[in-house]
């Protein structure tokens, strides 16, 4: 196994999958000639040709809309949205068609398309380069969503997404693109959708997160006197309730962490699942640590917005002291 960055693991996955299946096609803004603004698609155009690694016009709804048609013609498009905030123009196609088209054919057709995008803050970038819009995606029927927190998962979840017969959105935490590195299996590597991961075992409190916030939780765990378990959700839909509820059953306490704005974020869904299915296991309130219901701030203030290990630890203490 090689040590790789997360973005290199993404690139690796794309190479391996495109080699394996000639119907896979990568498309997006600047994915070809430039190899992607984060270089996630570097080398693909040289290796697989400009027809399978397509620099599209600058039009996100056009990218996703034509991908629907490409899927109907037998392709497996992997669409890159250059930044999460520039995926908003494609929400219409996503909600209106991507998540609905198979159903509309009575199950006669499949739409095995993948949408990948960098996500999240902490990278000191201009406005609208640091959002965390996963809730919009997860709430959309017919669409699955995965967010890796390690290079190995970035490769394996993307491979699973590409192979999945349903549309899958993979959001890659861009703050993790270049570090930390991690061991990544060579060749084919698939992390099945729908399986959470215990990122750290613990006994007293469960810290639940996905993406970059998993690392924040791991740091928070170190700050606590108590023993914290960290659950890395990995796939937001389908959600691995068993692992989540199992951990909460064990610890009796849960802190749910998301970087996105608080109100109606995906963290609320995690809380709702616990509150509905594990109430007897609980020894205290389920507390959320989240971004705020305001726009992601200009980057000199981003540390005031993105949940920190201190904030997570404080929430955990609150639950532990309950």
């Amino acid at each position, binding site marked *: 196994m090689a040590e790789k960055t997360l973005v290199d693991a993404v690139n690796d996955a794309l190479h391996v999958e495109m080699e394996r299946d000639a119907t896979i*096609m990568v498309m997006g803004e600047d994915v070809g000639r430039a190899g992607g603004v984060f270089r996630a698609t570097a080398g693909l155009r040289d290796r697989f040709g400009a*027809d399978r690694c397509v620099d*599209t*016009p600058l*039009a996100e*709804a*056009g990218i*996703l*809309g*034509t*991908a*629907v*048609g*490409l*899927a*109907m*013609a*037998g*392709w497996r498009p992997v669409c890159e949205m250059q930044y999460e905030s520039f995926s908003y*123009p494609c929400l*219409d*196609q996503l909600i*209106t*068609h991507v*998540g*609905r*088209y*198979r*159903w*509309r*054919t*009575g*199950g*006669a*057709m*499949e739409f095995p398309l993948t949408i990948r995008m960098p996500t999240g803050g902490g990278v000191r970038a201009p406005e609208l380069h640091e959002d965390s819009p996963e809730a919009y995606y997860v709430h959309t*029927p*017919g669409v*699955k969503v995965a967010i890796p927190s390690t290079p190995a998962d970035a490769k394996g979840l993307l491979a699973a997404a590409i192979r*999945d*017969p*349903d549309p899958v959105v993979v959001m890659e935490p861009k703050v993790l693109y270049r570090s930390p590195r991690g061991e990544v299996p060579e060749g084919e590597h698939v992390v099945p959708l*729908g399986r959470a991961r215990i990122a750290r075992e613990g006994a007293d409190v469960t810290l639940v997160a996905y993406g970059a916030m998993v690392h924040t939780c791991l740091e928070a765990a170190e700050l606590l006197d108590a023993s914290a378990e960290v659950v890395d959700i990995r796939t937001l*839909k*389908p*959600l691995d*309730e068993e692992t989540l509820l199992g951990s909460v059953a064990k610890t009796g306490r849960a802190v749910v962490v998301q970087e996105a704005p608080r109100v109606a974020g995906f963290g609320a869904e995690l809380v709702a699942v616990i509150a509905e299915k594990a109430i007897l296991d609980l020894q205290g309130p389920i507390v959320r640590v989240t971004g705020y219901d305001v726009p992601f701030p200009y980057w000199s203030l981003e540390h005031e917005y993105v949940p920190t290990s201190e904030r997570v630890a404080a929430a955990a203490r609150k639950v532990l002291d309950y």
Partner: protein
Amino acid sequence: MAQVLPAEHDVRRIIGDGDGVADGEVEGLDDAALLDLYRAMVLLRTYDERSVVYHSQGRVGTYAIFWGHEAIQAGSALALADEDWIFPSYRESAIGLLRGMTPETVLSWWRGHPAGWWNPREFRIASITVPIATHVPHAVGYAWGARLKGESACALVYFGDGATSEGAFHEGANFAAVMRAPVVLLCNNNQWAISTPLSAQTRAEFLADKAAGYGMPGVRVDGGDVLAVYQATSEALARARAGHGPTFVEALTYRCAPHVTADDPTAYWDAQRVERERENECLGRYDRYLRRLGVLSDELAEDARDDALERMKSGIAAAEALPPPDPEVVFASAYVDPPPTLREG
């Protein structure tokens, strides 16, 4: 970049007026083919008129009337090869009839019954798209994807004049040209988007003038003239199949019926203009043309009507005889591999 000529502004016509304007002909269309077009139009007309009746009887739900649009639909659809795909809007809901779909299926769609679903691959007809213009990129993607696979199939996408205002139309058209997708963008310019007249939709003198902005040819055709539509579509398809990419076809007609059964147009339309347009409707024009040509007899015409009516009768009967849908259908097809909690609600 290739030199693209400005869009044609003259409206193409083939059918004369039986008076000063002489009838033309379309090369390659023999009498049988001419009658196929006629029967297609009669079938569509019958579907439409019966549906309005069924709606008034409470037997179908809200229904999007396409009376007067039959020439556009039949003329273009019959110009296609079998392998070519059609991407309809709600206005072309019954286009499948021209490819062997039963009225039962289409009626079921308007009855909100999942028997109205079809397998797009079976008919090479995509699902009906309700939101305006969002299917334009689908057609473009399909055509582009087929070309990449070395297939010769083209795509035909229908949309209205109002649809040209949507970003989805624009992005799809641009992709089509850039990818040289073999697709025909067929704009049914019926002068209205519900209550909004074309003059409030755009300041473009001709919708076809949008084509130059995408670097594709644009043509204008009399949408009441089934032969002109047939010919313009055939030309566009020939270009597409030869690898020259998309064409924008503006087919001019006039919506002489309410937008949908639920609509009351008296508040906004000009009843006299509607009257005039109804008198000039496309099926009558084609009927008279064929009779001038000596191709259509009373008997053939009656035959076509009877056959269409028969199909509608059995269609509605079959649709009404369907058992209520299995509630399982709610869950059955959203995902190939559904989340385990799918049924939680």
